[in-house]
């Protein structure tokens, strides 16, 4: 894996500058069932294709960002700061 990830603050950077933070998924409601929370905590969609992910720019601006990536080709379609898409 050696693709470039565009950081909204810093521009295109080597993916090794980032820490992967998992899939972006909605947090269950506070009173949602235990199984919903367990599903949220322990299960992944693990999409083969396009998914939105959390990335932390560890060796850069040290900000969390979200990127839309094709997990097959590692092509990053877009990236943005949380809440700005």
């Amino acid at each position, binding site marked *: *894996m050696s693709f470039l990830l565009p950081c909204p603050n810093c521009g295109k950077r080597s993916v090794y500058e980032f820490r992967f933070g998992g899939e972006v998924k909605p947090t269950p409601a506070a009173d949602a069932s235990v199984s919903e929370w367990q599903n949220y*905590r322990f299960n992944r969609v693990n999409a083969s294709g396009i998914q939105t992910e959390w990335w*932390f720019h560890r060796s850069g601006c040290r900000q969390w960002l979200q990127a839309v990536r094709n997990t097959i080709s590692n092509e990053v379609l877009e990236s943005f*700061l949380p809440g700005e898409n």
Partner: protein
Amino acid sequence: MKFRFHDKSVEAQPGDTIAAALFRSGQRIFSRSFKYHRPRGLLCVSGKCPNCLMNVDGVPNVRTCITPARQGMEVKAQNAYPSLETDFLSITQHFDWLMPVGWYYKTLTLPAMWHAAEPAIRKVAGLGEILPSAPTEYEHAWMHTDTAVVGGGLAGMQAALGAAERGEEVILIDDQATLGGHLRYHKRSGPVPDDIIAWLQAAKNIRLLQNSYCFGLYEGSLLGVLQRDPHTAAAERLVHLRASHIVVATGAYETPILFPNNDLVGVMLSTGVLRLLHLYGVPAGKRAVVVGESAAAEEVSGELRGGGIEVVAAVEPHAVIRATGAGKVDGILTRTGPFPCDLIVICGPRVPDTGLIAQAGGKIEWSDVQGAFLPTVLPPEVSAVGEAAGESVANTTVPLPASKRAFVCLCSDVSSTDLCQGIAEGFDEIETLKRYTTATMGPCQGRMCQLSAIGVCARETGRSLGQTGMTTSRPPNPGVTMGALAGPKHHPVRRTPMHYAHSNLGAVWMDMGDWQRPRYYANRSTASDAEPVLIEYQAVREAAGLIDVSTLGKLDVRGADSGKLLDKVYTHRFSDLRPGRVRYALMCDEGGIILDDGTISRLSEDRYFVTTTSGNLDFVHQWLEWCLSGTGWDVHITNVTAGYGATNLAGPNSRDILRKLTDCDLDSSVFPYMACREAEVKGIPAILLRIGFVGETGWEIHCPAESAEELWQALLDTGQEFGIRPFGVEAQRLLRLEKRHVIVGVDTDALTNPYEADMGWAVKLDKDDFVGKRLLTHAHAARDESREHLVGFVLEAPSVPDDGAAIVVDGQPAGRVTSSRYSPARTAGIGLAWVKTARAQEGASIDVRVGGRLVKAKVTMTPFYDPEGRRLRQ
């Protein structure tokens, strides 16, 4: 210039490679083959074949034909015993019928057979010897450019100049020491135009990486480049090169043709012979037979004669019957008669070097017209020029049918017979044939054998070359030394501001993550570890101790919504914490699993000072940022770990010591346990936290890192009359264990929730939503008897178990010890352990495994020392 080759000294001319100098000195055998130990001599003289691999200055598998000779080098042959000239294992070639293709799979069918055979196979198999420590230095570098041109031949140089004229930044990579590619030795195409090289060198936006080869093209247009001898302090530099555009100008290379004995020493490719002749002035033989199509053979013959080599005959490839000779060529048998000679010059098919293009995702297809596999579809960021793109490639020589043993793969001694056998056994696709026979999988990665292997496969299966197709090209090719991939021997170490003060006090160091911390301070009069730890322990319990806790993670959290964030992330409540107060902080994930702990002090209305465990700082910081992201809350988190030094002053005399250095009122009535103040200590601005990890009256003192050593020294000097001693991590571990304080990650693991860790008091389920609340609520309600609980235990016999020792109940394993020490306060072995929930009761009886026997112990749910915490509050 001289270097050593085994026990002889070899003279080298300026510009010589190791192989050229050896050849000039009369050496003809350069290696022994992988399987049959047949003698092998120079073939390609361009670093493409496996025949000249040797050990140079301790580094195995060096391609000596492209490695410049240097004064004092130590060069040794590989894979030959006792010597290159006489190799006992060459006897194996007469027993090849015993080792057919797929021998391993067919013979070693039972595990017992493999285990019996393995030691012998390990001894004779493999190539080269690895020294346990790298004899040279390696380094990594990162480069970025608009255009990278791979290949310094004419096409590559022109492409580089063209890009430079368009104003692009260009890096030109060439695996030779001199630019020019085949123009340097190929008289008809050459010479290299002088002006081009001068332009290249003068251009400000062109960077030349010579003596460097590109071993792979990876995702994101990342080129792996290995630069040899980048400077005197490093043998090799691995360059991670990013380019927006990549021009592949890798040219084409000549490959052997198949006939029996085509691997004898003295059978050489025409380009290899011309390189030796024109680059190093060494004739490869006296009497040569040239094998090739008439036009090519005639041209090569002319050049050979010009170089003083007698050309006995020129033979068409299909007329060759076999080469003759025992180890070395002494003649060739052809349909036009036998010719005695000492050199057979092969004008083989030229194969465009398209590996990088294939790795980039380009399409490579067979062209009947040009007799080669050529790139037909290129990814947008890659282009090909020159012979790599098929320019002026016109092969008429197709790999010959081979009835007898002709070597296809020189790397692992795979013959045409082996390939036919493999196909007959059903491995009739080129990819499966490759895996079954290992053809194309050796050090040359198929450069010498791929076309022949495809040819044999096509003929045997009745398919065309195009239908047969190519094997997948994968990096690294050529091979890269493990040292270069590993990079420099670089072990970063973090030191606290008081590091050298500890050194002067005789600290015995331990590594904690990147940090170095004093384990204890050696008492120079005793040799034992235990005694200094005990002395340090006693000082803390009876007088005063001082420990460097600068490694604690420290975060400065500011802003109007800081309390809101901390309420969300930690299990306790912090928005209602009064300024000047400290609270224990426990952090869980959404599953209710403990992530980290520390303390949070509220310094003012909108400023909190958060500490984390030493190893978890980055994680906690990122976790806080993640929980904050997208909320729009007014919070700023700054990592001040390196900015602050910290000490913990603890013990009954600590107040008396600190009082001498600060005006801050330290009396418990105004500065009670779990309070914090900002005050000056010896004139140094500091944050004082009244907390007690070790269980005594004490203060954690955080101050600017640049003053931390001064403060440390002041506390020690002032404490002298009060019996102060510095103490290390080992004493701290014992002191905290007596207080039953948990260390996250030591006493807890990735399945631990606060209730099971006996820290339910730190979880406030009645506060608004926080991370982990839902599943913590569930865990709190469902007390699961099948799970485990963290308890303390006191051993009833004088002994101490190892960390991790088993807990046994009724002869069954029932848990494990996480921490254990001998407690001076209890005069017994104590510890923390996970036991089944049913056993987590005061006074329950368990057995602990200590050194192979079981020792009785009693469970306790309260601290081992000062259970009411009176001493902390004094």
